[in-house]
């Protein structure tokens, strides 16, 4: 089993990173740390996809020297997926940061639990 994990080193690392990012996003109370976790998580997925799409010794599928043999090129789809994913995660990071700014202006703290308590207190007043 260790050999299999070592042979797929990139994927193993990607899944571990995904777990780290996921845990940070889920458990950290600080909103900025949550956003960092979100970015680690999505980047891990891109590493996973990119490493799957790469075959050693082959090139990006752009025909330059007239080589049309399929064996000379890699599959471009994973790279396309990574691009789409990056766009998505940029917009998510943007929205989360905007929300964080708004919450910080209102409550002067980044701790989500404390913010929830303050919001509840507002209701009582």
């Amino acid at each position, binding site marked *: 089993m260790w050999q299999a994990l070592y042979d797929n080193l990139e994927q193993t690392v990607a899944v571990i990173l995904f777990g780290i990012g996921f845990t940070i996003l*889920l458990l950290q109370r600080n909103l900025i740390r*949550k956003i960092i976790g979100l970015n680690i998580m*999505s980047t891990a997925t891109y590493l996973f996809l990119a490493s*799957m799409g790469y075959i050693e010794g082959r090139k990006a599928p752009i025909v330059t020297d007239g080589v049309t043999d399929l064996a000379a090129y890699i599959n471009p*789809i994973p790279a396309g997926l990574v691009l789409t*994913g990056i766009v998505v995660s940029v917009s998510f990071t943007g*929205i989360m940061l905007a*929300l964080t700014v708004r*919450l910080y202006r209102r409550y002067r703290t980044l701790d989500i639990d404390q913010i929830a308590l303050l919001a509840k207190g507002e209701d009582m007043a």
Partner: protein
Amino acid sequence: MTLARNFPFFSILVCLVGSVVTSVLKPRAAKALTIIIAGVVLVLSAFTLRYALALESAEPFMMGHFPAPWGNELRIGRLEALMATGISAVLFITLVAGFYHMPAFVSEKKLGLYCIMVDLAMCAILVMLYTNDLFTAYVFIEIMTIASCALVIVRQNGHTLVAATRYMIMNLLASGLVLLGISMLYGITGHLLMEPLGRAVRHIVETGQYMEPLTVVIALITAGLAIKSAMFPFHAWAPDTYAFAPPMSSAILSGLIGKAYIFLLIKFFYRVIGLDVIVGTNVDSVLFVCGVSGMLMGSVLAISQRDIRRMVAYSSVSQIGYIYMGLGMGTEAGVAAALFQMLAHAAAKSLLFLSTNELVSVSGDRKRFHYLHGAGYRNPVAGVVFTVSAMSLVGIPFTGGFIAKLNLATAGMPMGGWMRALVLIALAISTLLNAVYYLHTVVSLYRRAPAEIDYPPSHRVPRHAAAALVISMLLTVYLGLGSGPIMRVIEAGLKMFA
């Protein structure tokens, strides 16, 4: 009628173009345009349904110039068309009935932006119903996530911001799981289009070579979509989000957006993995247990609420539990029952959120039950509508909810010993619990109002909103009385779904 095969694509395009155009319009025009677009989508979906009813088997619709294993596809079948028609009908009614009290929650300037998000959500729902490509589905899951969070965030209130942040975080976790699942699936099969994926998965199952990764993929994608649709142990975000969002947003979120995720999950189970493989990996049993516990716990939590909107929100958790119980049975009858429950719940729940808002606003925006006494007299239309939709969710005969529960019970009958017992007992207890809190609410709506509270002068519900509410109420009753043809469409649709 060959023009009709383009209609799913047209309806998606109309929403997308609409969302762009809306961004440069004045709020009033944006509002009108959004309602018109919803109407157009409803008409197009109805024609698609008519076209699909004549089809022998589901029909792929090529997007762009590349054929099956490479290009992107939509797919038109009876089930997709039926769900699209049902959902767009509910959406249209919700928009007509709900827009007039939006100014109480959103500043006039932001209303145009709100309309963009409604259009985008509508577009994402349609794509998730029709698409035949897993990665397209992922992209539109994300668009839906952004749109649905924005629908909540528009209300500038501390509670709403906190609820929206929580909702966003849960959604992001779920999106991460889905994306990792899709990447792994692509890694072991090399396809993203659903039919080639399905063939590759069958090959994997036959040879047994990549069985462990496949199980992980199923778990990841199921968990992701379950979190997004508020299945029981992952429901924590739902009550606050539904209770503090503007009521029209809650209606759209709970009634429609959650359903699109579940529909995608059913599509994944049927078309990509195959129901027999799902049963083999026991994922269905997990969903079954979660569904049953959601049915019971959602209702118990709803009873303990003192705020009517939180009660309605918790009842959503319980109703979603019914859907997952049907899915978890792992039989065709169970899935068909779940699909019918999706329609019945979509119709009843959006109605319930809107009429609750009417009732609360005639009681001076106080949501405690004590203040709601007599609200049924102060706003008769909302009172009747609330009563009927509550009856549907409890499962009183002549409403959609009754047929849904009947179908679930019938689907549970042929199951093995303990599962059959569990289905029937859970249905009975859950119905009883539903009755406790809904009937209690209905009774308090028609109690005499306490004299010491002074209520705001009653305002008239605009005629078009009242008409929309009544039509939607009739829809719920129609689902109860005319369920035969709908069930036949669902069953025939499921046959051509795989």
